[in-house]
């Protein structure tokens, strides 16, 4: 249906967005690449010339590198798992008839509006503080020793805080998908004697696969670069140093821009590996 004329028009209309993003990507990327090959210590004489791959070998051979990659994957994976499993359960629940559905829905999506910094501060101080936190009061009320959340179960705590922020997002997308499910199909299955689990497994879940894919894709993009939640709570201690945080430490705490830039390049590589992996699933599901 597309004519030559509209193709040209389409190309013209796409140009601004593509051009801007290209610039946005290429300028910082090329600057990162440039700095990653240089010895650049802002506090000690600034840019001191090329060292080529020294920063790369140093960053990857550092004893902090692989643990950081692992932590990144654990946190991203953990949050995805929590938000999808609980998101489906919540969506199924919210889909049921009830009184005050609109209000409940607002309550559930509210955490999505909260700034990451604020949510990390609130969780850290008002809930997870081992002396004055609400959890500590709760634990003591039941005669238990308060858990020191941020050092006893640091990764879990961070996954919990981040999941709290992203669960609403997952729930909403999944809820919209569930609401679009043809109820006749479910009824037919029920008539045929399929139990609730079977109905969920054979009809609802496949129907949700596209929505789940979207949740995974969008959330991964944001989760790979979470920073505020770690900066505020543990500062990367107790095994919560992600790759993003390690780069932050190299660039701003150690003031080694060259080394940090090399780390940035590794982070882009990791992100692209994850992205490639995602695109294979997404690509399949997006076309349906």
């Amino acid at each position, binding site marked *: 249906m597309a004519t030559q004329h509209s193709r040209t028009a389409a190309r013209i209309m796409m140009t601004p967005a593509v051009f801007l993003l290209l610039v946005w990507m290429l300028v910082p990327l090329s600057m990162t690449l440039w700095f990653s090959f240089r010895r650049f*210590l*802002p*506090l*000690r004489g*600034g840019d001191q010339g090329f060292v080529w791959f020294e920063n790369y070998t*140093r960053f990857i051979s*550092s*004893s*902090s590198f692989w643990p950081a990659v692992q932590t990144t994957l654990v946190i991203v994976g953990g949050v995805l798992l929590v938000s999808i499993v609980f998101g489906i359960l919540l969506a199924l629940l919210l889909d049921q008839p009830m009184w005050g559905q609109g209000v409940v829905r607002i309550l559930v999506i509210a955490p999505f509006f909260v700034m990451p910094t604020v949510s990390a501060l609130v969780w850290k101080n008002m809930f997870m*503080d*081992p*002396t*004055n936190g609400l959890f500590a009061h709760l634990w003591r009320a039941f005669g238990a*020793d*308060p858990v*020191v959340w*941020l*050092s*006893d179960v640091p990764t879990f705590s961070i996954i919990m805080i981040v999941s709290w922020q992203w669960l609403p997002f997952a729930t909403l997308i999944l809820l919209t998908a569930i609401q679009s499910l043809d109820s006749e199909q479910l009824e037919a299955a029920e008539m045929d004697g399929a139990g609730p689990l079977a109905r969920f497994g054979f009809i609802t879940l496949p129907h949700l696969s596209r929505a789940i894919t979207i949740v995974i894709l969008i959330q991964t993009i944001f989760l790979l670069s979470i920073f505020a939640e770690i*900066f505020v709570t*543990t*500062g*990367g*201690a*107790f*095994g919560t*140093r992600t790759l993003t945080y390690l780069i932050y*430490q*190299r660039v*701003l*705490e*150690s*003031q*080694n821009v060259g*080394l940090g830039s090399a780390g940035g390049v590794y982070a882009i590589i990791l992100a692209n590996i994850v992205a490639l992996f995602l695109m294979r699933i997404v690509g399949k599901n997006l076309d349906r």
Partner: protein
Amino acid sequence: MSLKTVLRASGAAALCAIASAATAQDTTITIATVNNGDMIRMQGYTDLFTEQTGIAVEWVTLEENVLRQRVTTDITTNGGQFDIMTIGMYETPIWGANGWLVPLDGLSDEYDVDDLLPAMRAGLSHDGTLYAAPFYGESSMIMYRTDLMEAAGLEMPDAPTWQFIREAAAAMDDPENGVNGVCLRGKPGWGEGGAFITVTGNSFGARWFDEDWNAQFDQPEWAEALNFYVNLMNDYGPDGYENNGFNENLSLFQQGLCGMWIDATVAASFVTNPEESEVADSVGFALAPNSEGVERRSNWLWAWALAIPAGTQQADAALQFIEWATSREYIELVAENEGWANVPPGARTSLYETPEYQDVPFAQMTLDSILAADPTNPTVDPVPYVGIQFVAIPEFAGIATEVSQEFAAAYAGQQTVEEALERAQDITNEAMEAAGYR
């Protein structure tokens, strides 16, 4: 909410932006500062400064970690965002040496630069030139509960040892009532737990580097110091002390949950302030401890100071503000309005000669602690660096933050003290190699 309302709202917002841009003052200086109590108080008095001089002041008040990140980025890139930066004793000599700060040699005679405590002045200078004026200075000392100490049947000497601290902590520890024998910093970060464990190390004769910049965490002194600290805190410290920094401990102590607390001398005015502290009338002070037979004590030296970045267009106005904020008159102004106990301490000799201030219970101990600190000679063995709770080299902040994270993991029981020391040794040597020291 329709699209139209959104559009209309943003149109109104844009108009407001234009309007507000038009009302700028003639001379305005921008000051980046930390959100500590004394600085917030200073903000409250800014109007008086503006009245006197006609110079308007914009404050950028940030939490300590964010502030450091913000001002460091700006100074190293010559961004020129701030006319005055609040920095510490660690940054000042390094930045001064790089030529990034305006030397403060234009201070007026009334300012009386010789009145600054010599230790503070030395710590904020490079090659004899002053680069930042101390707003307040501090060392560290023991704050303890006199009532609990008495109940335990002990008496705090003026200059106790770590061994006595352990004994007293055991006697005061009362888990039934939630009272911890001793509260100390364990929180990761070079300026938090990192600073505390470094001075603890000093008081056991440990040091960061030998004279050839080799990390010293494989030496027995470090093992002794760290083991002592971990055992003390595991036995008599609060749960989760690996997350506690200055602020967390302050709030614990104010709530009456600590028998002893060894920390910054500025805390003394907070813990004796009846409006904030439940134990205000029963706090005693003593010099920071040392290990038996080691001649160095575990007291540090720090100042929050005001400096003028070289990139500013408003150096004169900035200098005027610094003179005002760190002057004797400012101290008197605060004393008049809020009482002598609340003036910014530790910067001027004359403050400690003021009779009214000598009546403040913690004044003498603060001065003694500051005088006992020697940044050029922090520990027993000679070192190639300056600084007591830090090493004044640009790489230190990064290294010490990671090292303190390893230590904190040991406090939390995630690794042994030996493993933590081994990791610390590797991290430090790795970073020193990357920076070209070794």
